């Protein structure tokens, strides 16, 4: 049956799509100016000359379970299975720098990730793991401080360490209130001191990384996420420049980025391509950089968790594989496939194995990594890349027009942005406009789904055991040494010394993650931006 006029369609970000793209759609595209060869500005086709032919993307899952001991076992298993990067998934208290024995953390210890209170916990997590050979992703500067303290205790030269901390993510407005968070000014001080200290002492660390993973996972679209990423990176770089303690170039030397990758395959691919071009433009035009190596947009991508659903969970395997294919076609440096079961529980062993194999099949069986930027030159892909770049730039300009991202955050602008994005998404799912197979289309009664998947079983006593272990640790340590280190940290916080250096020293001396952070809380106050108060 011939259909005269095709149905209207838009991309996930709402960009109207024609049913066909042709040479006239990209007639303004100039190859040398807008694309260039891989490894050359504006890096649209990839940041490295050889891309995956030179080095395959890194496989890095976000892993942490209820005890440091079990987490250590899992890391070793991941490496045995061929994973080549680690990422520490902390439990909720650790992620916000509270100790396991804090009464406010009751019921949260050991859930959703690994509890880390002390340098000893970090030593347990990385026991028998060659940290100088594997790169590790750490959630916050505080957790990274414990990681460096562990490395120093082990006698590993910090210059041999590699990894990432999304420290500059502090400039990105968060979709949630984080209880007991250090004030934004205090967090910025920590992020900057962290980055300066690592630039000198851990030169291979990605110390100025920016993540917008959670933004997209909370309903923002690719255009907003990319606009936010640029706005946050610019404010971070400007802050670095204004401090004037180290050369501007140093800020860009080890910068990297993190984005969530979701269902609209071409939009995901084109967002990564657009991001590289946009970042190059910012580096050249705003900061006048000339060293092309400083303009590389290196990116880690992770399955957007909100695309995975509890209904018919095996379907998530397919979704995740498409996400990872998108990341690969988009030229990402590191990839993180979620577990297919993450709408039900934290990943089981089966799910972990499957995640790693998903990427290995992509690398070794599909041959998609053989040719660089294989979609480059496609009328649709080039048109969409330009369209996303244009729209993300406009969103960035909106934020800039409000006085930059910190001012926009403090004005409450993003409260409504998140709320709108969340509610809009849900309305579309509820109405069926946004199709989710098994949820609002072809929905089965749970009892009719012909399979069950294994569920991760928590050890119910793990939290209590961790609290007991911490109490014992606190009792047995050298109190005078800990107190002296914390006093020294406080002195640094009240002067213009580098506070991260003294944070690491405090952790080495036996201070807990909360005790170290409490000094910052005391000196800099708590965050008062209440984002999601409705």
């Amino acid at each position: 049956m011939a259909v005269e006029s095709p149905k209207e369609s838009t991309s996930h970000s709402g960009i109207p799509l024609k049913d066909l793209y042709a040479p006239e759609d990209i007639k303004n595209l100039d190859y040398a100016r807008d694309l260039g060869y891989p490894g050359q500005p504006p890096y649209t086709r990839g940041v490295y000359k050889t891309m995956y032919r030179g080095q395959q993307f890194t496989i890095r899952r976000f892993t942490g379970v209820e005890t440091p001991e079990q987490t250590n076992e899992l890391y070793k298993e991941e490496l045995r299975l061929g994973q080549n990067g680690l990422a520490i998934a902390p439990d909720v208290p650790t992620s916000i720098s509270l100790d396991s024995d804090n009464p406010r953390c009751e019921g949260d210890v050991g859930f959703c990730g690994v509890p880390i209170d002390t340098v000893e916990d970090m030593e347990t997590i990385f026991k028998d793991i060659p940290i100088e050979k594997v790169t590790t992703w750490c959630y916050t500067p505080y957790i990274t401080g414990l990681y460096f303290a562990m490395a120093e205790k082990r006698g590993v030269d910090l210059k041999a360490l590699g990894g990432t901390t999304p420290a500059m993510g502090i400039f990105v407005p968060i979709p949630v209130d984080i209880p007991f968070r250090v004030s934004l000014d205090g967090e910025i001080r920590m992020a900057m001191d962290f980055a300066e200290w690592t630039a000198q002492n851990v030169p291979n660390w990605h110390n100025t990384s920016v993540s917008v993973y959670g933004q997209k996972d909370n309903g923002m679209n690719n255009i907003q996420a990319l606009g936010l990423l640029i706005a946050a990176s610019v404010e971070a770089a400007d802050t670095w420049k204004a401090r004037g303690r180290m050369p501007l170039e140093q800020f860009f030397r080890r910068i990297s980025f993190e984005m969530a990758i979701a269902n609209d395959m071409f939009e995901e691919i084109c967002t990564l391509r657009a991001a590289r071009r946009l970042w190059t433009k910012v580096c050249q035009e705003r900061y006048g950089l000339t060293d092309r190596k400083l303009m590389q947009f290196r990116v880690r991508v992770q399955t957007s968790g909100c695309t995975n659903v509890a209904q018919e969970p095996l379907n998530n395997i397919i979704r995740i594989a498409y996400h990872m294919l998108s990341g690969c076609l988009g030229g990402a440096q590191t990839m993180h496939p979620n577990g297919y079961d993450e709408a039900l529980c934290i990943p089981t062993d089966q799910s972990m194995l499957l995640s790693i194999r998903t990427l290995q099949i992509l690398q070794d069986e599909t041959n998609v990594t053989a040719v660089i930027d294989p979609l480059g030159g496609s009328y649709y892909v080039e048109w969409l890349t330009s369209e996303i770049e244009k729209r993300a730039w406009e969103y960035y300009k909106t934020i800039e027009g409000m006085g930059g991202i910190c001012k926009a955050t403090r004005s409450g602008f993003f409260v409504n942005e998140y709320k709108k994005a969340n509610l809009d998404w849900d309305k579309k799912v509820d109405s069926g406009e946004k199709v989710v197979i098994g949820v609002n289309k072809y929905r089965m009664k749970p009892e009719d789904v012909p399979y069950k998947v294994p569920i991760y079983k928590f050890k119910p006593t793990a939290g209590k055991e961790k609290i007991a272990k911490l109490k014992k640790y606190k009792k047995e340590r050298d109190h005078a040494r800990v107190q002296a280190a914390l006093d020294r940290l406080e002195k640094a916080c009240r002067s213009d010394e580098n506070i991260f250096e003294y944070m690491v020293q405090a952790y080495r001396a036996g201070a807990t993650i909360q005790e170290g952070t409490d000094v910052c809380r005391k000196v800099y106050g708590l965050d008062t931006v209440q984002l999601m108060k409705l």
Partner: protein
Amino acid sequence: MAKDKRIRVLMAKPGMDGHWRGLVIVTQALRDAGMEVIHGGNMSVQQIAQTAVQEDVDVVGLSIMTGNVVGMTEATIKELKKAGKGDVLLIMGGIIFEDDMPTLKKLGVDGVFSTGTPLHEIVEFVRGHVGKPKAKK
């Protein structure tokens, strides 16, 4: 309950977890349906019980995404009972293990809505059950 009295709801996340999206969306859906909803955000279980009493709510909605569903629910119910609010309609959502369902029912949870539940089902459930005596456990 009297028709002119608006249904009062407290929506909260027991503990410190920051996965707020479900809570925000359900809060809005219940408000759109004409209910008066107090958006508590992260609260300790004691705060949840205190607020439920102070605000005289008919419904408490919990969102739990960390996996500690039974532990957090048990603690919340204990505090609610202690505060004399054991009769409140208790609903919950989040990442809930199927195996925990019978335990949750036994503890006194009236309705469990895991991810992917159409919002109108939650609204209808609240309207249909609020103010009625709890089902026999």
